[in-house]
């Protein structure tokens, strides 16, 4: 199977999933309508009827980790091709990536010493 066919097949599976879900919704619709009752459409809030929407500005207290995650995630994109040719290149590959990872690891250690690895 050629790669282009493989990706077409994967895309086709997504379409098929959407079709399956649509079919399920249609069957459910044909089973009956939702009864109109007062207060039914209010989201679960332990009995409090809070009128404002939940889409507030929210303090994401793990943003320090998120920044660190970006740096590491970028680096992982390089790791995959490196891992494939690792045994071919040998010791040089280990040293190359070792230096690269050591710099990143020092960054992690630095963040740790600056108390960045905790809930802000």
């Amino acid at each position, binding site marked *: 199977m050629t790669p282009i066919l493989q990706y077409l097949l994967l895309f086709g599976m997504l379409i098929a999933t959407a079709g399956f879900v649509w079919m*399920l919704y249609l069957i459910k619709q044909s089973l009956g309508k939702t009864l109109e009752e007062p207060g039914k459409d209010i989201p679960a809030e332990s009995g409090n009827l809070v009128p404002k929407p939940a*889409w507030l500005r929210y303090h994401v207290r793990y943003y320090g980790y998120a920044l660190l995650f970006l740096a590491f995630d970028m680096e992982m994109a390089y790791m995959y091709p490196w891992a494939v040719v690792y045994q071919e290149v040998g010791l040089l590959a280990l040293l190359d990536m070792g230096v690269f990872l050591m710099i990143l690891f020092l960054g992690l250690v630095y963040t740790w010493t600056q108390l960045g690895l905790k809930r802000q």
Partner: protein
Amino acid sequence: MTPFLSGFMITLLFVGGVYFVAVLERCSMTGNVSWSGPARSFLLLFAQEEIKTRKHDKVFFETAPVLFIGVILLTISILPFGRGSVIIDLGTGALFINAALVYIMVSLLMAGWAVNGVYAMVGGWRALAQLIAYSMPVVMALTATVMRAESMFLTDIVESQQSLWNILYQPVGFILFYISALAIAFLPPFDLPVAEGELAGGVWADLTGARKLLFRLGRLALVLTLSVAVVVLYLGGWMGPWLPGFVWTFLKTLLVAASFFAVGHFMPRIRHDHLLEYNWKYGVPLALYNIFQVGVVLLL
């Protein structure tokens, strides 16, 4: 085996596997094995009334369950169930698992946002925190298996374990991947986005009927997918004496899935700040050590 026959077998194993996982999940919660239980809860959700919360986000409300179940089916379609029995033998298989499963978090965040309820929204943000925590260990553990196989084809990764399974070759990577798999599937010690005790169901709190059904079904399929991934990457895939490859994959998968639920049964839920802290302070250094160890052993 012909492509048609193996496709049929994979579908059969997949559907059977999901049912087994559903039985196991019920068993971990109620303590007794009930073969009709999954069918009853399916019918319950199928007959349940569809309630849409007021002022919900229409686009996200409709797309989140489709995305959730879609990426899981994409992932299962690239995992090999037997020698040459794989629907799509993708050249970037190991990377694709990781890339596709990130969308679990995206769909949870979308579902949490869509219903416009406070508990669901908090659950959605927690799903994001969980991704930031588990993502690095899982990627690095995958990289170490790719290093040994010199290929990102999942079939090659299984073949590379001919002499010694990866669970013994890189035990640190296995432990990291196993724990991360629990976090990806948001199973009990890490069920932060859907925590029943503290968020009244979190992301799923306001979903009813078909959408809840899709999320529940998707999570069962996700547990099965991750069990197969653990088997393929660390437990030698289809390898084993006497029995055919399919049977070995199925048996190992069920064993791994049962162990997932057993871990959840005996562990308390972890706090999300602890999860982030432990993963970045201990998980990431251990994952880097794992890559280094595998690298040195490969060069010897």
